[in-house]
């Protein structure tokens, strides 16, 4: 603060407090609505004093939407995607930064361009690919005459087929590739002093040893930031799980929310819907609160 400005300070506090209320109110309203019974939650205006049915509603929402296994699915998927992204992008960045080979720039640009192909614009064909992940390779072999050749030589007809619908791999793999993560590591690797590499090589360390024993421990901060961001991102995915999981046993917590929307004809069970919303909101909120430092750092670093 540079000077005394009592009036301005008053308005600063006022506006900031309004912003605070604007951000927190929805959470509070959801929590309060989740504690009412059917009659109270539909009162106009709804009472802002918490009711007494909180745990009953939570339990009802939990069983109606079968949230136990769904939350577990969400965890498996979010964790798988985050871990996959952290590992795969580290490997790629290592390859791009620490090796000289023809086509290196091409690989860099191939990864870069994926930034412009978000999942939402290629959902229909990606769905077709996941229905049979080997289809691209089958087509290529057919077109190049390779399958014909194999059939002639061995008499085996090449019929590659591997469906990933309704499986964890189908949920996770298409989301693992990441350009932002790769660039984050690349930026960091470029700042690692060359002397370290020289020293490691002088001591006889190969590429893999250097990567595992020196580079990875150094990039722990990077990993935490990237992991946090990607965990939240994956947890919040909606469109992809909605398409891929037609089978209930692989459904996610976030997609299950749809089942809790009160029907037009039925009783307006908003208290149950809000209890379910609260359960689904809580894990990412906890991650944001506990990992705030990494979350903010990851956000700012990945978008650069």
């Amino acid at each position: 603060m540079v000077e005394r400005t009592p009036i301005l300070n008053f308005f600063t506090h006022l506006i900031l407090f309004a912003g605070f209320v604007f951000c927190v109110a929805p959470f509070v309203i959801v929590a309060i609505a989740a504690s009412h019974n059917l009659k109270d939650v539909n009162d106009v205006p709804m009472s802002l004093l918490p009711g007494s049915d909180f745990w009953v509603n939570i339990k009802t929402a939990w069983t109606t939407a079968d949230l136990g296994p769904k939350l577990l699915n969400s965890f498996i998927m979010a964790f798988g995607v985050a871990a996959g992204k952290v590992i795969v992008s580290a490997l790629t960045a290592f390859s791009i930064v620490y090796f000289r080979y023809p086509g290196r720039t091409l690989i860099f640009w191939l990864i870069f361009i994926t930034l412009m192909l978000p999942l939402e614009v290629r959902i229909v064909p990606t769905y077709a690919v996941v229905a049979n992940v080997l289809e691209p390779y089958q087509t290529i072999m057919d077109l190049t005459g390779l399958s014909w050749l194999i059939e002639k030589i061995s008499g085996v007809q090449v019929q590659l087929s591997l469906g990933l619908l309704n499986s964890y791999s189908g949920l996770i793999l298409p989301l693992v590739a990441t350009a932002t993560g790769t660039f984050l590591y690349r930026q960091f690797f470029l700042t690692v002093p060359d002397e370290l590499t020289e020293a490691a090589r002088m001591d006889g360390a190969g590429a893999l040893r250097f990567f595992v024993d020196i580079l990875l421990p150094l990039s722990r901060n990077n990993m935490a930031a990237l992991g946090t961001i990607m965990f939240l991102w994956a947890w919040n995915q909606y469109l992809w799980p909605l398409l891929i999981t037609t089978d209930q046993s692989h459904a996610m917590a976030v997609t299950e929310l749809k089942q809790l929307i009160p029907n037009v004809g039925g009783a307006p069970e908003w208290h149950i819907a809000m209890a379910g919303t609260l359960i689904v909101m809580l894990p990412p909120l906890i991650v944001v609160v506990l990992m705030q430092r990494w979350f903010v750092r990851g956000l700012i670093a990945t978008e650069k």
Partner: protein
Amino acid sequence: MEKRVTFGRWTIGILFAVPQLLLIFTFFYWPAGQAIYWSLTLQQPWGGGNIWVGLDNFRSILANADYWNSITASMVFAGISTGLAMVIALVLAALTDRQLAGSWLYRVVLIWPYGIAAPALALAFRFILAPEAGFMAVVNQVWPGFWDPGLDGADAMASIIIAFSWKYVGYNFIFFLAAFQAIPRSLIEAAAMDGSGVIRRFWDIQFPLITPTIFFLLVINITESFQDSFGIVDIMTAGGPANATNLMVYKIYSDGFKGLDYSGAAAQSIILMLLIVALTIVQFRFIERRVHYR
């Protein structure tokens, strides 16, 4: 920037990149190519492969009033929600940066909404903005029929805009605050010594210095409003009433998976892809400038 010291065996080097390359080929390039192929062909009703139709799919989409309606809805949505989310975040960040007592609280709390899944906050707002329960019902009691997102297209659009802006205020806030804090305090103090007030300093020093961040966030917010809106639309309005909130991604999804019109959906995907490519190019050109700027 290049590394001076590298590892010699480049065959090993390529191996490290293989997992990523396989993933992007299988799940990015192949589907994108497929989308282009589908958009230029038409599946025959009795099987027998696709027939080449050139740009017919694009022509029929661009001649379709529903599609233009969807584009208009997306633009209205992108424009208003981006504007709201950015202005509110800018004001809050500028005020938080004054670092009065208690500003740590805002720095912590204002980020929370961004962590929440779009469908979850959509359900919360569907209740908060419901016409018969919750809070807009109070307004409806005073003026009956004032608010009904289920029947009135403008109300439905307003609902999804509110839900989306709420989430992205937190996001923009993080970046604005980081930008404000990157401005050297000495600049502000020097200006204050010269006798300029808080508002004057904001417009003459802070605002020009954060314009790169503003442009950057503008692009990100618009692209996200195309992508992240799907969950909000699906939970709150399902594209209705009367297609008033049938945004582009939602239309691709409903045409492709409910209408099973792969060619039409693919052509729409290509158009959306071009839009995003254009926005990304704008963003990166601008980022180049930002690097020189600092």
